[in-house]
Every structure is written in C-alpha cells, then in structure tokens.
C-alpha cells in the first residue's frame, strides 16, 4: 500500500519535471521558460520528496528532506528572479 502511494507520488513528480523540461524547450521567450521551469520543478521536487518520505522510518530524515525542499524552493525562486531582472535590465538598456 505504501509502495503504491509512494510510486504514484514519485511518478507525479517526474511528470511535472517532464512538463518543466518540455516548457524549457518549447516556450517562446525567457520569462515564460523561467516560469515553467521554476513552478514545475518545485512542485515536482515536492511530490518526489513526499513519495520518498513515506518510506522513511525516522522523523528526522523526513524533516531533513523537507528542509531540502524549502532550500531548493527559496534558491530557485531567487535565481529565477535574478535572471529575469537581469534580462529586463538588458532589454531596457539596449
């Protein structure tokens, strides 16, 4: 039962990663690509970690996985913001 639930969550996470990667390749400009990449990958990572956390016995390991997800969330959001701001400045300058 836990295996089935975990497999469903991991597959859903992988599906979101796939969607993010297709968005990276197919969307027209930088901002929409950043949007697809950040949103889809963060959700994908969250589902992946939820699927993995079901297998863990120790609650501290689950907390560590949660901390990983939060750190990736913050870092990817910040770097998407920085990339978009730099692209905006470059457009405004040229």
């Amino acid at each position, binding site marked *: 039962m836990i295996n089935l639930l975990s497999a469903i969550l991991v597959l859903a996470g992988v599906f979101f990663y796939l969607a993010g990667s297709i968005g990276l390749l197919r969307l027209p400009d930088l901002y929409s690509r950043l949007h697809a990449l950040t949103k889809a990958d963060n959700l994908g990572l969250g589902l992946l970690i939820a699927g993995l956390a079901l297998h863990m016995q120790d609650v501290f390991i689950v907390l560590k996985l949660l901390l990983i997800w939060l*750190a990736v969330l*913050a*870092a990817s959001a*910040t770097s998407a*913001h*920085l990339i978009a*701001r730099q692209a905006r*400045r470059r457009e*405004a300058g040229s």
Partner: protein
Amino acid sequence: MNTASLLVFDALLMLTLVGLAWAALAGSDERLSVILFIAFGLVLAVAWARLLAPDVALAEAAIGAGLSGALLLSAVGSRPRGASRTRASSMQNHTEEGNTRVLQWTITLLCAALAGILAWALLHALDIGPTDMLPQAISANLATSGVSNPVTAVLLNFRAYDTLLELAVLLAAVLGIFALGPATPGYQPAGPVFDGLVRWLVPVLILTAGYLLWVGAHAPGGAFQAGAMLAAAGVVLRLSGRSSIGLPNGLTLRIVMAAGVGMFLLVGLTLLVLGRPFLGYPPAWAGTLILMIETAAMLSIAATLLLAFHGGRPKSHALAARTESANAATSNTCNEEQTP
C-alpha cells in the same frame, strides 16, 4: 530491488554521463561548456550515490560541481561577450579553420586507442577479481581508529600523511593565486530578494557545516564537505555584493589559512616527541585528535576555497567598508532613476 531495472538505470546514467561530457566539449561556446560541465558534475554525484560512495557524492556535489562551477562561471562571466572566440584563435598560430583535419583525426584515434587500452586493463583486472587485503586490514583496525566511518578513518588516521599533503597543496594553490594579481572585481549590492535569501541561508549553511563535521565520524560527512559548505556561505555573501565575506583579515587570516597544515604538524610532531610514530595516534586519544584536526582542516579548507573564488588577497575591512558605502550611495541614486 530488481536487477533488471537497476541495469536500465545504470545504462541510462552511463549514457547521460557520456553524452554530457561529449556535449560539454563539443562546440566552441565557452559558457555552454561550463554550464554543461556543472550538469555533468551533478549527474556524477548521482552516480557516486548509486555506487555506494555517499562521502564522495557529497564532496562532488559541493566542490566538484558547485565550487568548480562557480569558479568557471565567474571566469567566463568576466570576459567580454564575443571576445572569447576571436581572441582564442588569434592567440594560436593556426590557420583560419583551426586545427587541421589530419591532426583532429589523429588525436581522436589516439584517444580512442587510450580508451581501448584502459578498458582492456579494466577487464583484465576485474577478471582477476578484487583483492580484499587492504579492505580487510581497514575493517580490522577500524575499532581502534577513533571513528566508525571507514572513509574518515582512512583519510584522517591510516592515510593522514596524504591528507596533510593535500591541505598543503590547497594552501600552495591559494598562495599562487595571491601572487598572480589582485582579486576579481566584486559584485553590485544585492536587491531585497537576494539579500533576504542570503540573510537566512548563510546561518543555515554554517549550521550544516558544523553538523557535517560532527557526523563525519560515524556517517557520511567530514571536514572536506563541511569546509565546502562554509566556502559556499562565503561565496553567497560575495555574490550579494557585501564587502566582508566572512574572512578575517591580516594575521588571523594567515593563521586560519595555515590552520589545517599547522594542526596536522602540531599533532604529528608532538606524537613524535612523545615517542610514537609521526601521526600515529594512541587509540584512547584518536577520536579527540581526529576531531581537533578536522575542525582546523574545515576552517582552513573553507578559507582557501573562498579565497580561490575571491581570486586574490582580500582588502582590509576598513578600506572595504569605505568603498562599499560609496558604492551603495551611487547605486541607490541609480536605482531611484531606473525603477518605474
């Protein structure tokens, strides 16, 4: 775990690694090479985890992909766009199409022959089978080594001399970087988003470094990974435009840089004076001595890696504070003009 699915996973991982290595070195775009190399390093960390090498996976992700990638990206970013290709081809005395076809094919065939020879040697060695003499010696002596993580025991007890020399190599590289010129120009002060991230990320990184240092005695971790975490904290501080990146200055900086090698030598020579072999810890004290050496090594590794990213000798704090306030004043006026 189904062996067939593991085989599929291994084959996919192998193809991804070879493909990323090929793509990173195809083409002549430097920036693309560096970005693909960072991706290659991260997939390599997955391969280390699959091959049951978690300490190496941590170090590869932090140092091999992370810090190396940061160094390479800052080197690529500092070059003006479009200068890379023309400057490179004018530096060599080649014809306009670069290396000749004959040279390219000869070198490709020679490298393929090298791969073939290595693969033949590997096949031969694997057919003979593993010799378990050294692993058995390591596991037999693990109880008296002071730690229970075999990799830490090898690094800091059985082969401590090699780790001492490695720290000396790190120090020598940074001294060479000091001798080559001033530090790379700093970055602009960060906006509120990045600044907010840095404010809570740096304490978390410091805590994680302390945790990795402590847990390295009985689980994957250790001084190198902890030092890389501290260096990452310093890199993030530098990228956000701050003048003080967590390094002390003057004599304290020199002491911290030399602390790794210094602590090793202090412990080794004291043991020599007490009649034991150089770096031959007495079993009762081994755990404490290893922790002392690892702490000094962590600080030293962090300082040297951060100085390598800095690119040169850091300015003194007083001078840096004056330039930072001047930069902040000018950038505040610029921001007021630009924000809509």
